[in-house]
């Protein structure tokens, strides 16, 4: 993951590997922070994506560093959520099928 800083102190970008984090996870994380900073996504190549952050002019260095840290943590959490969702997708459908079926009798398989 490369980091770089533009000349403007409130702009910032990072490059993420799409083999590490899915595009979905990155987008969902960006959404979560839409009240803290705005985000611009740019594809670098098939493997990498550039995420550009634009912070509120009031945000000082410490606040920005803290937000970046939170962003990274949230990205990890989104990754975990994808694992949980993938594993539980089948049983979730089964639960909903049972929930909306006509009867609550449990017929043997």
């Amino acid at each position, binding site marked *: 993951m490369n980091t770089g800083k533009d000349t403007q102190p409130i702009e910032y970008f990072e490059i993420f590997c799409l083999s590490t984090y899915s595009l979905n996870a990155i987008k969902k994380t960006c959404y979560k922070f*839409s009240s803290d900073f705005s985000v611009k996504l740019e594809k670098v190549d098939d493997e990498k994506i550039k995420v550009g952050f634009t912070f509120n002019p009031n945000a000082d260095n410490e606040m920005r560093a803290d937000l970046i840290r939170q962003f990274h943590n949230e990205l990890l959490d989104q990754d*975990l959520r994808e*694992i949980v*969702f993938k594993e*539980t997708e089948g*049983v*979730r459908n089964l639960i909903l099928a049972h929930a*909306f079926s006509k009867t609550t009798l449990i017929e043997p398989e």
Partner: protein
Amino acid sequence: MSEARLKFQPLSSYESKENTPYKLLPFNFTHLDSNRYVLTNLAGEYLVLTKHELDLLISKKLPIGTINYNNLIAKNFIYDQSSDVAINLIALKFRTKKSFLSEFTSLHLFVVSLRCDHSCPYCQVSRQNVDTSQFDMTKETANKGIAFAFKSPSRSLKFEFQGGESLLNFQLIKYIVLTVEERNKIENRDIQFVIATNLVFISDEILSFCNEHKVLISTSLDGPEDLHNKNRPRPGKNSHQLTIQGINKVREALGPQSVSALMTTTKASLTRVKDVIDEYITQGFNSIFLRPLSPYGFAIKTKSYKKYDTQEWLKFYFEGLAYIIEINKSGHYFAEQYASIILSKMYTPTEPGYVDLQSPAGIGISAIVFNYNGDVYASDEARMLAEMKDETFKLGNLDNNSYEEIIGSDKLLDVLEQTMSESVPGCSECAFQPYCGSDPVFHHATQNDMVGNKPNSFFCHKNMEVFKHLVRLMEDPDTRKILLDWVRC
């Protein structure tokens, strides 16, 4: 069997084996604080885990037989080959949690008049002068509203009379009550009547009628005299005095539990939560609903909405909640209603039926509003939005549209479908989704987007902080006992 094969197996024989790990059941997780998460399943049951425990859980490395493991399997977050009944249990609980939907609309609000003697700055109604009766609902409109209400399949129907000041058109209230009762001789539903009133115009005649027909009274009490009168001006500047007189009169005629009170929060209330609570206790109420200010009607016009943000309100709410808990600890029962509603969603499989915390939203399908002129609104807030010239959530008119046209309209159904928190960004993966709601009218009013960008939503921010706060409060055994008594079973 040969004589007593008295060989009993130890507990370990019945535990899952290390080489056949447990399976995950669907759950969401959200930060509680920097190191801990709240997890919830489809039924709304919750658990708190540290980051480390969550990682172990998801990577299937949680040690078998530990308290965490046992709690997770008992609360249906994981299952193994000897407990797949978890699937059926969650299905049953989810089914129960959503079963309120099939009951459909139960609360029907009739705005019987726009006339009012008060001029509250936060009023969400374009009130009219006391003597202009062209802003009263007619019998014809009322009849159509009653017919509409009985089209709902709900076994229980609640008719609430609002205004302006509803008692200024008491004759119509009487008419509606009698007509509903007559119709109910055939329908046999469970009927409730409530009059929302400032009690200025209460009289013995009105009380006698309410007594005979079991009509309940709901009034406004914003706090002690100075605060209440500042919030709720009227000619004579004596709103508080008249309200208290009215409350006492009602109780004397109809019984101690016959009148409830609602407070509205303004900038002036924010620093005086203890005074407001004390006033409620003094006036003999055993609960209070600490409400936020809503961004509609005169509130926006008089700029009273922007005057404080969520942080100030949260401070007000948490201070009030702490004070109420102390009161309970000293041996006096007193509940906070918003907490009570949320706790009921956290601890029971049934829906408490609070319209703003439902998904799909309760607009139209749980509650519906008939304005004095027959206009039908998806909620009271929708009506207030219309006062501000935004008719997005006006569903039709009793004169021109049938029940099917109104309830089946895209105007309603599209909104419900597109804003369901189960499937919108941010909410779909939020641990607090089972306790929260979607409130499309609020998001439309504040962001011009009925789904709303949740990180920028006051509704979202407020609710998440309240949910987290309640989870933390439940960790203290003494507070837990008190809060569990507020759960509506």
